[in-house]
């Protein structure tokens, strides 16, 4: 049995958001969609100010509210711990989104061709055709056209389906090739770790052994697969600073 877990080492995170960017490019998410988000938080009053960073991928809960409420089984939990969305089945009711306490769901509010306009980089420029063959975005990752897992469902990538929900997939298309999720792979300071917790010898098991850790909103009983090491859970007095551009 394999069970994937992500660990976030808050002693190392620099809040640089490289993970956010790697995710956006790997998964071709359009503007304002942050499957991975990094909070930059501030607490206390000058000069006793404290700062902290908090990366927030989908928590891939073991008791996932989104999976429970999905009326059509488009959101599902796999045996290996991944919580995925079947883009072919989702009806766009957004119930998963209101059920999720972590704010990780992103709905495709716009048409796929319009979703890219915000970036003001016209990928359909005829001069790009000879190189890109017209795909949008120009760096489109073809892995997302494949079906994934033994269940063979369309679950990776983003921005193809108007009116469908999406979120972090733990990079299912990479994990199935034996690669690390894009965010983990790019983290310049090794603050993100990923692997099979059932495998005693895996780097993540070694990393987490004998370490104090917490999960976000543990008290809700969602039992996330994302484990935080170092630091403390964000208090209700934490103020978010330096927010990304998040409007549509």
């Amino acid at each position, binding site marked *: 049995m394999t069970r994937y877990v992500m660990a976030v080492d808050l002693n190392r995170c620099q809040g640089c958001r490289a993970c956010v960017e790697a995710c956006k490019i790997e998964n071709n998410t359009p503007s304002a969609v942050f499957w991975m988000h990094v909070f930059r938080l501030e607490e206390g009053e000058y000069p006793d100010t404290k700062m902290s960073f908090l990366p927030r991928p989908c928590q891939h809960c073991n008791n996932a509210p989104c999976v429970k409420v999905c009326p*059509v089984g488009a959101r599902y939990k796999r045996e290996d711990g991944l919580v995925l969305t079947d883009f072919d*089945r*989702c*009806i766009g009711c957004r119930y998963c989104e*209101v059920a999720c*306490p972590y704010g990780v769901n992103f709905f495709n509010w716009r048409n796929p061709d319009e979703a890219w306009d915000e970036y003001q980089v016209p990928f359909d420029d005829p001069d790009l055709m000879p190189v890109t063959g017209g795909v949008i975005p120009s760096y489109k990752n073809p892995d997302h056209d494949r079906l994934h897992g033994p269940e063979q469902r369309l679950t990776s990538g983003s921005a193809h389906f*108007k009116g*469908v929900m999406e979120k972090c997939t733990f990079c299912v298309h990479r994990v199935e090739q034996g690669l690390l999720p894009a965010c983990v792979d790019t983290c310049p300071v090794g603050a993100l770790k990923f692997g099979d917790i059932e495998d005693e010898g895996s780097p993540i098991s070694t990393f987490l052994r004998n370490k104090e850790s917490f999960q976000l909103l543990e008290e809700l009983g969602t039992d996330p697969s994302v484990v935080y090491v170092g630091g403390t859970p964000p208090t209700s007095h934490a103020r*978010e600073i330096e927010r990304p551009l*998040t409007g549509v």
Partner: protein
Amino acid sequence: MATTQDMVSDRLPQGVGRWSRGWLLFMALAAIGVAIGVIGWAIEHDQGMAATGMRDLGTMGGATWGVYISMVVYFVGVSFAGITVAALIRLFNLEHLKGVARMAELLTVVALLLGALAIVVDLGQPLRGLVNLFRYARPQSPFFGTFSLVVSGYLFSSLVYLYLTSRPDAARLAESPSRLQPLYRLWAAGYEPTVDQRARDRKATFWLALAILPLLIVAHSSLGFVFGLQVGRPGWFGTLQAPAFVVLAGVSGIGHLIVLAALVRRVLRQEHRIGIEAFTWLGRFLMLLLFVYLYFVVVEIFTSIYQPTTTEQRISDALLTGRYAWIFWGSVAALVLPAFGLAWMAVTRKWRIGWMVIMGLIVNLGAIGKRYLVVVPSETHGQLLPYPIGTYAPSLVEYAVLIGLFSLGALLIGGFMKLFPIVEMEETP
């Protein structure tokens, strides 16, 4: 044209089959409203739901359920009244309310239809939704109850109920020649007013009513569960959600029924069929429900300010003093004032239909406000992680669709009135 109409329709009661200028105007307005809604939905469908004011929870700082879902809850609530009243009339044989029974049934069917449509307009993939719900719907999702019980079971049983209770009238109308005679023949489906048939009808409608009552409790509770089972959304989680949903459902439905009954009484001159006793009964019922609901409101406010978590505090602040305060207190006023108004009428025993209509309308505004406040603030102010406070305001497209939904309701009821007597015909001696 006028002559043919006069000739054939004179014998049809309650203005059925004849269109008056007022009715035409009403229907034209409703049709325009429906057209506005269709255009709105077409825009939404074409541009994606970015055309609405809804946005993602979390980083985007929006509300992903907005006025549409509020209206789903509201419309399903309205349907409650209809079927409850109708069932009570049959079960307890409340003769003086017979006059409003059919319009109550009709209200139920129309409101359910609108509720279902409000779900459809809220879906990102509506056509896929219709197919996939029948194909994959999961009982684990509180939505399953909404879909299977509320929309399909409830709607179907109400239709059956409406049909069975209207069949004798159809048979009677089928006897005399009119342009609508073929329709009534079909409608009557060979009804013969035999003793046996009447007994069967009574039995069938009795048992149907008996079956519907628990169904509607379950259905409305399940709608409450859609919200009440969510631990991750402060302000939603709680055991009071389901009962409060049922009670407020009754409030809005009875309110509508009062309005509709008064309208029919006046326009179709049915004073003799819809007596003041009907209004008295409806008024008392509404008053009772209002007081029960206000009790829930007090409990709700008290719980939310006694020892709230930070997030709940944020929500209740937004509700009681903050951004939503005008809606909250406006809604509470819209529920409190009629409650006391009705109480006063009950005490003085002077039931003024005009006032009751106004009260029926404002309790519905209050109900809409409360539904909105159940759905939206927990999304905008209920984030448990340090996200920004969200914002949500319905867009023009959403308003257009809402206009369309209400207009469709008006169109359906208006249309029905010209096809069939909306007040049950008096039994010929």
